[in-house]
């Protein structure tokens, strides 16, 4: 049983990992992540990379929707912009991986700020609908600029090269994707230790009062869009390098719904929620694949998989919103609290 955690300095109180056990677990986690590529099969490495990319994007969306309260159904569009930018740069100019990802993030950021501009006049649901519009426009852009984006056929992305090594397998890409995701998560956690993060939460809870207290609304809403889209853009770039091919259909509205579901299911407004939600939402289709292939459906299995997946996404959103609106992160917290208090109940 954990009996309180006394701190002796303000700095200690604000630290991310606030007890010796937490620090130990964190180190163990890092070690496990580092050892993973050496012991896992190709399939699991593939999943790990995919999960990681989804975590990065979900974290971005969580910053915008979970922390700042600006519902967005345009995450896929921002990812697409980042993905296409990175792909075009790699294909045309062979520029370094990190630079391409960064540029992808920047392009997505610019788009994010543009989409966020109406957010002062336009509240809540209207903004969500505007983000759908952004998605439609982005899709149009991707499909109708064949000189730049390859049109409906899309682009095939050559593998990146770092220090002469071609990143053409999941195992190799793992060493790029996971550290980048970790950095993005760290950045988000840092954000909410400072006034910027607090301002975001204030905007979510009561934006008029936030303004009267000294927070310029438009500037901070745009900042939230900017940071969130940057994350999405980087995730999109990683997506392009990972799948080695992107088309306008790679970033549909359904993907935006996927990420919204990840944020809701995981827990809005928490870093842990972004991680849990992305892991859950990525593994659920894999689980479904296993279940469906185990059922005696014969050749119909693949036909059934896609609609079942769609149903499950929607059902997860509904079920979590009704029964566990604070998401998996809250369930995790409850379990932890039960452990800390054991043998007491409350």
């Amino acid at each position, binding site marked *: 049983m954990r009996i309180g955690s006394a701190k002796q300095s303000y700095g200690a109180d604000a630290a991310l990992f606030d007890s010796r056990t937490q620090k130990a677990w964190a180190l163990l986690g890092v070690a496990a992540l580092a050892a993973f590529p050496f012991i896992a099969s190709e399939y699991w490495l593939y999943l790990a990379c995919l999960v990681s990319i989804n975590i990065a994007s979900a974290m971005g969306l969580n910053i915008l929707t979970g922390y700042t309260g600006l519902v967005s159904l345009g995450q896929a569009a921002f990812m697409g912009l980042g993905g296409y930018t990175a792909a075009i740069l790699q294909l045309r100019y062979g520029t370094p991986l990190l630079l391409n990802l960064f540029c992808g993030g920047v392009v997505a950021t610019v788009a994010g700020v543009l989409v966020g501009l109406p957010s002062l006049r336009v509240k809540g649901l209207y903004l969500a609908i505007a983000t759908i519009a952004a998605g439609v426009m982005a899709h149009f852009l991707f499909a109708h600029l064949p000189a730049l984006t390859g049109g409906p056929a899309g682009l095939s992305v050559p593998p990146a090269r770092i220090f002469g090594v071609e990143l053409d397998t999941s195992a190799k890409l793992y060493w790029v994707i996971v550290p980048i995701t970790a950095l993005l998560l760290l950045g988000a956690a840092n954000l909410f*230790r400072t006034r910027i993060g607090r301002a975001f939460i204030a905007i979510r809870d009561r934006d008029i009062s936030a303004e009267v*207290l000294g927070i310029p609304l438009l500037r901070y809403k745009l900042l939230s869009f900017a940071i969130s889209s940057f994350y999405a853009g980087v995730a999109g770039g990683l997506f392009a390098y990972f799948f080695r091919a992107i088309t306008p259909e790679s970033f549909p509205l359904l993907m935006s719904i996927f990420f919204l579901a990840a944020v809701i299911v995981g827990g809005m407004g928490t870093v842990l929620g972004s991680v849990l939600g992305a892991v859950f939402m990525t593994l659920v289709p894999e689980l479904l694949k296993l279940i469906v292939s185990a059922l005696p459906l014969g050749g119909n299995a693949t036909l059934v998989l896609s609609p079942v997946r769609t149903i499950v996404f929607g059902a997860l959103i509904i079920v979590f919103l009704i029964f566990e609106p604070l998401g998996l992160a809250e369930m995790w917290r409850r379990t932890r609290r039960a452990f800390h208090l054991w043998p007491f109940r409350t």
Partner: protein
Amino acid sequence: MPAPASPPRPLLEVEGLSLAFGGVKALDGVTFAVQPGSITALIGPNGAGKTSVFNTLSGFYAPQAGRIVFEGRSLAGVPPPRRAALGLARSFQNIALFRGMTVLDNIKLGRHCHLKTGALGALFYTPAARREEEELRREIEERIIDFLEIDHIRHAPVGSLAYGLQKRVELARALAMRPRLLLLDEPVAGMNREETEDMARFILEVRREWDATVLMVEHDMGMVMDLSDHVVVLNFGQVIARGIPAEVQADPHVVRAYLGSGDVVALRERFRRAAVARQAA
């Protein structure tokens, strides 16, 4: 012989403020001044326009006519976040704490406009950002949390607090704004006697220790009369009386506004007796 000192310039001057919503006149030519270091009370029956005055001072409403001069500077066209940075702090009638945050984070938010950390500093949690956060934490703990006796709830989510404590946290947040002028909208509404006395004590100490001026909207007449140096009475959006508490109390317009027309003399006598009784107690 030294020249006589000129009277101190008012901290806040409101002149001819008029505010209308469609056809409804919320404020009609409101004029008053708040002297630095004073506690001024804004009173009046429900619907008189008191919160409208506050909302106009905050910058939430733009008046159709009139001007607001704060520390010699006109506030026309100054957006609300800028007014906060100038030292205009405010608490709200219906508590406006941010439910998704703890008490400590809410208070830290008050200091927002005086902090410097930008987006990049925040993302990388640079040493400068860390220092700023620690300084902030230290100052809030030592000056505000101890002062308002809320150390036992600093990590509690504000939604779980009792009403009286929430109001205290609101005051704490307003204090974190480094206020020159503290606008308190019904600071003791819904409080019992003990909580009211605690709050009154805090307000007096704020005036003394923080060099802040207080303008409060209040309905609790005891508190108004005991605490304030100056009282402004509103009714139907107009100022119907202003002056020291004793004068305003005796003003027949005020009495009629609150109590309707009746025997003013008898009422005045009752007030006087009640005030005497309180002073003896």
